[in-house]
């Protein structure tokens, strides 16, 4: 039992921090908020040159074949630097399910290109009902000749407008159990009948409404089996929730570090505000929340990687905890910064807004607490 990083993970973490401090400064994060695409192809290629898009892709498909917990270490650094763009979408929502459920042909088609940074992918799961469960997937896909035809709306789809392909969850069969009858399709984002509208969100990330109007998808583009897509999606949801946790851990650690520096420098009443106990005790509570988030996230990631029997419960525990703990951290961060924190002149507000985004993605605390309760009952 060892909660520390392996030597490899330590190297990855340091390399990522150095790279991102240089290439992903606050100015770049703000620029990408204004940018219609929300990412820069140059930066995307630089990350690919680091081997990051291919981090969990096996070497035979052009990746570096590292583990899920390695990816989590990297994503913690992404949260710290508030890395914008479709990385989690492409790697966690795209590459991982293709790797797990794809045919050999599909893997050959998609994974090497993802690893080289030549393919951007996402998962279109949620709809206007805004539900994470199987009964939230209502959009129909009807078999027609050698194709399926998709009609309906997907909502809150991360980065869809810049993707080359989308994994789209659609209903191919009505059934007593909502988990039965869902199919995953690999859909070319340039297919006729698809329309993207970028949503304006609190974090200025790029989530989309994706409208499907008579979109034809070849039957060969089904991922896994027809009607049996839900277990694949469940696997993606768990990994995405842990990825969000890792991002929140890094984000809240940086909010904490930034606030700590500020409290040591900001003078009021003739002394640094960090000398006031009212502020000091906030910091003690913040570090508990940051550290508490980090280690339950590591545990959940490790349990998923090792296929531990309680992995799903741990994922829900981690997401429920990180959602609320990191919210407490960034709220304290705002309070410590006072007026300047409420402006766009200073970086702390970026963390505050992005925390809420990642808190809501892949299940809020109430959602995951209920999943934990269901497991306790079992």
């Amino acid at each position, binding site marked *: 039992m*060892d*909660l*520390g990083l392996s030597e490899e993970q330590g190297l990855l973490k340091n390399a990522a921090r150095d790279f991102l401090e240089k290439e992903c400064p606050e100015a770049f994060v703000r620029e990408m908020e204004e940018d219609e695409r929300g990412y820069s192809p140059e930066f995307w290629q630089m990350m690919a040159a680091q081997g990051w898009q291919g981090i969990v892709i096996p070497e035979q498909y052009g990746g570096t074949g590292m583990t899920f917990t390695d990816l989590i270490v990297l994503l913690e650094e992404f949260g710290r630097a508030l890395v914008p763009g479709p990385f989690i979408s492409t790697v966690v929502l795209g590459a991982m399910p293709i790797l797990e459920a794809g045919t050999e042909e599909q893997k050959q088609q998609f994974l090497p290109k993802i690893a080289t940074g030549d393919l951007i992918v996402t998962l279109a799961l949620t709809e206007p009902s805004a539900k994470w469960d199987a009964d939230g997937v209502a959009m129909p896909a009807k078999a027609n000749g050698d194709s399926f035809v998709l009609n309906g709306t997907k909502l809150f789809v991360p980065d869809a407008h810049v993707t080359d392909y989308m994994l789209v969850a659609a209903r191919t069969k009505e059934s007593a159990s909502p988990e039965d009858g869902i199919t995953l399709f690999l859909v070319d984002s340039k297919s006729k009948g698809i329309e993207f509208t970028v949503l304006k969100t609190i974090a200025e990330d790029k989530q989309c409404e994706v409208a499907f109007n008579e979109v034809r998808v070849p039957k060969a583009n089904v991922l896994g089996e027809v009607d049996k897509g839900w277990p694949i999606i469940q696997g993606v949801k768990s990994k995405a929730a842990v990825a969000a946790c890792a991002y929140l851990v890094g984000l809240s650690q940086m909010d904490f570090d930034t606030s700590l520096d500020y409290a040591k420098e900001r003078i009021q009443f003739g002394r640094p505000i960090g000398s006031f106990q009212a502020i000091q005790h906030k910091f003690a509570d913040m570090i508990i929340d940051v550290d*508490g988030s980090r280690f*339950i996230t590591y545990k959940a990631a490790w349990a998923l990687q090792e296929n531990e029997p309680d992995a799903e419960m741990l994922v829900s525990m981690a997401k*429920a905890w990180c959602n609320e703990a990191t919210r407490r951290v960034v709220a304290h961060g705002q309070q410590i910064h006072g007026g300047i924190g409420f402006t766009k002149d200073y970086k702390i507000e970026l963390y505050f807004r992005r925390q809420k985004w990642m808190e809501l993605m892949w299940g809020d605390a109430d959602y995951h*607490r*209920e999943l934990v*309760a269901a497991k306790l009952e079992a």
Partner: protein
Amino acid sequence: MDFRFTAEEEAFRQEVREFIRREMPPDWEGVFLEEEEEDWKQGRAFVKKLSQKGWVAPAWPKEYGGMEASPALQLVYNEEMGYHRAPIGSIIQAVGYIGPAILFFGTEEQKNQHLPPITAGEIVWCQGFSEPEAGSDLASLKCRAVKDGDDWVINGDKIWTSNAHRSEWCILLARTDPAAPKHKGISFFLVDMQTPGITVQPTINMANVHSFNQVFFEDVRVPSSALLGQENQGWYIAAMTLDYERSSLVAAAVSMAKRGLDDLVEYCKETKVNGRSLLDNPLVRHKLSEMAIEIEVGKYMVYRVVSQQARKEPGSIEAAVCKLYNTEMDVRLANTGIQILGLYGQLHKDSKWVRMMGRFQKSYLYAIAMVIGGGSSEIQRNIIAMRGLGLPRG
């Protein structure tokens, strides 16, 4: 990053578990620190059995009756003791930090005199740190020790001395240089409680139990061998031992919390209200789920400290974080337990109507002691902010 225990550690876990099941008093009610007289006796008998296995002090060197167990193996031991509510309250202080202080700072003679009786389950120790006017500000303590020939003569009052009335020996902080800055004029003594001039007076706690005492020292003459470490080094020794206290106690406490939660979940499954199980109540589900998550988070705070110890990395605030979080979590757990039991939650274990053996009623009271003793939550936050994060002193 690897959360798996080794096969050897898992085998030891099974062995400890079976031992506890075999040797525990059958009607053991099992609440933290067996302070009532009957419980105390049972606890001492259990410690004697532990001693026969050589399991009293896992971390200690074998020559003093320890096991030289790795940090992970100690964790396994503490987890099992905690989860099964094993009655080891009478040795927690001696094994957790008094013995280690003697190990680090004692002479050969002191080690040979004091350590084997602890692992043999024969001797009970108490702690004379706090005073009526020196609580959180412990370094302002006034108890005096004055050199007289080869001896020391001690005068002063100590308070909150748990189990002083049952102890053979006492660790004591006393001022030996009143002219020095307050942290630098304190020495650490090992005092035989039978020495003339010591009076023990009970203080009854709010659970109506005699655990605490006030201890008066009036011209108590102890030999030079009573001094541990160097003269005026006492604060340093105490600060180090208190760090030990924090990490050794918490591993068992988190597992005990998990047991409390598991029992509560079982109770909710079995208890029907209006024909439905309590677990069907969304508010109950929410509370149980929240506690399950909070306990899990606390567990990995402990694991992190253990990992650091195993890697021999220097710790800073991790033990304080662990103590602060988990003792406050215990307060919430006890409250959750009582709330779920409703009116029954207030009943004492002796009531014929009692549910779950009154455990939450008792832990609701005792949890308050844990966020105060061993450095209050506020002191932990100060330590984290100033010692750990480098924030300036106010």
